[in-house]
């Protein structure tokens, strides 16, 4: 479990990026962390792995304070940064030197994941393309079987077929004891993958809700130009008509559009919060 209590963080003491953030992430779910560029998504993730320390408040991951960076904590969590590092080693040698640090690592699983992501090579990893390197690290991270997996913009650098494979792989490797926390600003990459949406903006938690609750509370519709039956949280003109987000009053769930949800939450945070706090 991940718990942030009254979490405050700032790169400068007099200018806080996060103030009194409360966030709780449960096992068995895939969380999508959405935010604009510079909203502090990577900063939040770095606080969870212990690369940055909160200015005040507490962060707890699996009962550990991440800032201690103890081996018993680090072996339970894997962080994939936006820019991955692979040394000049073959896959076999990489596994030989990195896998012993992760007691639950499973080589058979790694082979399966590599196959699913279409990485079969005897070349040194640093000679592969950035996308290939990233896919290897994703496969390795999943095979480490850590209870927490944190990914910062994992789909950056992946081609379109790889993004699809990535979504399938993440879904298939999920289990009840694991938390997967994925940060991205490319909302479409997470559609049909995540169980819960976390949106941060201006250092504030704008939304933290399960996908099913979002479906129950909000309605994503294409309406007539002159639609005015309900207050609209967000609207945009599409080729097929006027797309709106309104409060779901009839109980019928519609297909969630993460991009529109994100825009609604960041452009109209007060209204969105009000709906979810009802």
């Amino acid at each position: 479990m991940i718990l942030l209590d009254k979490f405050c963080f700032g790169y400068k003491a007099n200018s806080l990026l996060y103030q009194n953030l409360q966030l709780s992430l449960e096992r068995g779910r895939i969380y999508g962390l959405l935010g604009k560029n510079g909203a502090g998504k990577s900063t939040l993730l770095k606080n969870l792995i212990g690369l940055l320390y909160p200015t005040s408040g507490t962060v707890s991951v699996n009962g550990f304070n991440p800032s201690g960076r103890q081996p018993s904590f680090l072996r339970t969590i894997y962080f994939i940064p936006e820019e991955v590092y692979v040394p000049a080693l073959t896959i076999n040698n990489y596994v030989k030197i990195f896998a012993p640090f992760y007691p639950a690592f499973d080589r058979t699983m790694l082979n399966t994941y590599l196959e699913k992501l279409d990485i079969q090579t005897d070349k040194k990893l640093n000679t592969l393309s950035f996308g290939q390197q990233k896919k290897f690290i994703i496969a390795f991270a999943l095979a480490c079987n850590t209870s927490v997996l944190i990914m910062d913009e994992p789909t950056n650098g992946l081609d379109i077929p790889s993004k699809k494979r990535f979504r399938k792989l993440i879904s298939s490797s999920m289990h009840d004891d694991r938390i997967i926390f994925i940060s991205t600003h490319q909302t479409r990459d997470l559609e049909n993958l995540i169980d819960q949406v976390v949106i941060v903006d201006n250092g504030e938690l704008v939304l933290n809700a399960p996908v099913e609750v979002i479906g129950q509370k909000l309605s994503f519709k294409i309406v007539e130009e002159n639609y005015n039956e309900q207050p609209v949280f967000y609207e945009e003109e599409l080729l097929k008509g006027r797309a709106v987000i309104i409060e779901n009053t009839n109980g019928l769930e519609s297909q969630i559009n993460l991009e529109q949800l994100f825009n609604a939450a960041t452009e109209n945070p007060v209204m969105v919060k009000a709906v979810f706090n009802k």
Partner: protein
Amino acid sequence: MNDILSLSRFGWLIRKIFIEKTASVFGSMLLCFIVTLVFYGMVMLLQGIAEAQNDAFLVGLTLGGALMASVVFGYFSNDATGVSFLTLPASVLEKWLSGILIIGLYFFLFLVYFRLIDLAFVAQYHHNLNTHSPYYKEQYELVNILRFTDSTAAQNFTMFFNFTGIMMLGALFFNKAAFIKTALVICSILVAGFLLNLFIINLLIKNVQTAFPFSIVWLWVGKERARLDLSSENADIVKIAFRFVLPAILWVLSLLRLKEKEF
């Protein structure tokens, strides 16, 4: 689970670092050895073998050690390597010791290497002497291999431990171009220390020609220069401070800095 030091985990870490950083670690060592050899040869041609021994030892051990210290914690010049190093499931002590081990390895290998090249150069010098010269015996005895127990070596060891400590600390403070930035900080401290010391001495004593911190003051007495040395008791205190206390502080600070490192 031991979160401070586990021998098996330390073994994995050392294996990882040596496999992963073979080029940078051994490349830097090789570079230092080559520079030492070239420096020894050049100074010998220009200023004689005795000067060459001291200068090459200083360059190879102190500057080479400083370079190695900068390389071993050089993970933070790049986001990906820095994150990978800090999030690897090994303890802070193990990560720090892995750096110390590489510096220690360099220290040991350098002494062996220096002894070998010193033996070769000294043997060559002895071989080239004219055995029929009336001064043969004096010339022969004038040059011997550098003893690692004499005061020159001791001063170099002191500098080695101080500079490696500062460089490790610098590599953990400055993420980009740590070696250059730390070298600039060292130069600034040395110059500022020298000038401050000179300023204070000038306030206290008249006719000062120059002064070196913790060491000596040169005075003008008429047209002659006279030296004012530190008392032997104070000199011993300074020696202990620079030989043991300061390096210990710097090395421990590098461990604490690694523990507190945010990236």
